[in-house]
């Protein structure tokens, strides 16, 4: 049985590593400017963690194989180095990994969170509510009209609760169900929660941030590739959480302007 444990655990360890090593399940293409730092971090961590995983499992498998079912009267002994070796080993192994990943990992985090959006970033507001995302562009005046929760009227498509009759800035705001952005242009996404907590997740952008009711949060990012990408809600928000999604369309500057004109005329 001891040998069987060794064999089966070895198979399990190698079988677990196989899909990773052969890249069977990987992140989608990275279309962001900061994503490569995250992907590198992930790859480095996978290498270290993966190696530690396999080695530890193989070590366990070996020890159980070798030191079970021993002969009658077999001597027991401590491994050379004893506890001291293990403690020192742990500090070195983990200490270096922790330092390396913890210290170098800051760069990827900082790229997303410690930089401010450029002044000419395109501002778009996203509103998350049970169970859809809506987006608002400021229009030619470059200003967003104020939000009035008491004026929200989904039936009449006033998702944001705008009051164009009384608020000048709201008159040219463009509300859409799709987030279209021009490629290679920095986007400053203002995030507003209508009812409960939600989250904004685009796998290809390597970006995720919660919408918190009552807090003015924002994200900024630049998409480097045109295409159609899913925006997923990743904060449990109620029964429709699984179905709460929108599309991010990254368009050429020309196509984006056409799209904006089209949407403006539909308001």
């Amino acid at each position, binding site marked *: 049985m001891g040998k069987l444990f060794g064999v089966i655990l070895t198979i399990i360890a190698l079988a677990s590593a196989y899909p990773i090593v052969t890249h069977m399940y990987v992140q989608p293409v990275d279309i962001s400017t900061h994503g490569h730092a995250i992907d590198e971090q992930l790859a480095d961590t996978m290498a270290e963690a993966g190696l530690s995983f396999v080695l530890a499992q193989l070590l366990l498998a070996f020890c159980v194989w070798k030191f079970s079912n021993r002969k009658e009267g077999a*001597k*027991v*002994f*401590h491994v050379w180095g004893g506890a001291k070796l293990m403690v020192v080993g742990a500090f070195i192994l983990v200490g270096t990994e922790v330092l390396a990943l913890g210290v170098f990992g800051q760069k990827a985090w900082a790229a997303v969170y410690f930089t401010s959006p450029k002044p000419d970033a395109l501002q778009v507001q996203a509103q998350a509510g049970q169970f859809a995302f809506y987006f608002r562009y400021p229009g030619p005046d470059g200003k967003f009209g104020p939000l009035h929760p008491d004026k929200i009227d989904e039936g009449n498509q006033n998702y944001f609760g705008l009051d164009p009759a009384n608020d000048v800035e709201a008159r040219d705001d463009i509300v859409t169900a799709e987030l279209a952005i021009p490629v290679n242009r920095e986007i400053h996404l203002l995030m507003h929660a209508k009812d409960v907590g939600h989250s904004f997740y685009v796998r290809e952008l390597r970006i995720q941030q919660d919408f918190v009711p009552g807090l003015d949060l924002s994200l900024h990012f630049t998409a480097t590739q045109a295409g159609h990408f899913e925006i997923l809600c990743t904060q449990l928000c109620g029964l429709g959480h699984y179905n709460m999604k929108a599309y991010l369309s990254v368009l050429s500057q020309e196509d984006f302007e056409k799209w904006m004109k089209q949407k403006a005329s539909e308001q």
Partner: protein
Amino acid sequence: MSLTIHSPAVLPRLSGPPKGSESGIWIALFAITMSFAAFTSALFIREASTDWTHVAAPRVLFASTAVLLLSSLMMEASRRELDGSRAPKINEHGRSLAFVAATVLLGLTFVAGQYLAWRSLAAQGLYLATNPNSSFFYLLTGVHALHVLGGITALLYLFIQLAVQKSVRRNLLRGVVVYWHFMAALWLYLLVVICVRL
């Protein structure tokens, strides 16, 4: 690893009465402190919102504070009658019983005083959900008062032990006394929080 065992030298096995636990009450106080620390942090975070306002502490709070501190004195007097090197006469129990009773009555008076403080706030239109400050006022005083009532229940148990059995376990007495003094100390802390931050 090849250690050998020698024949035993026969050593006596000891028996005796099982020990009681002296640390129990301190452990409980640790937990209660942690809970009020949680409420306090909630207060500090909530304070940052724009709707934070001000609620003046009703005057009766100071009177009930005095009552609670007096009850601590009574509790301490009761403890000294029972514990320590004073003359251990049976009829001393009469004095300690009286002090325990006084503690209970003063404790109940304190709770009544808290109720009056609530009434005073209600008269100003300040209820539990009126504003965050009033919420914390009712919350902190209410939770504290609940713990005081728990202490009063323990005091009643102590009273019955003394009255009926004419004796009480040392650990029980210590536990109740420490708890009661803690209720006063906790109240002083809450009073400062109420006056300074609410």
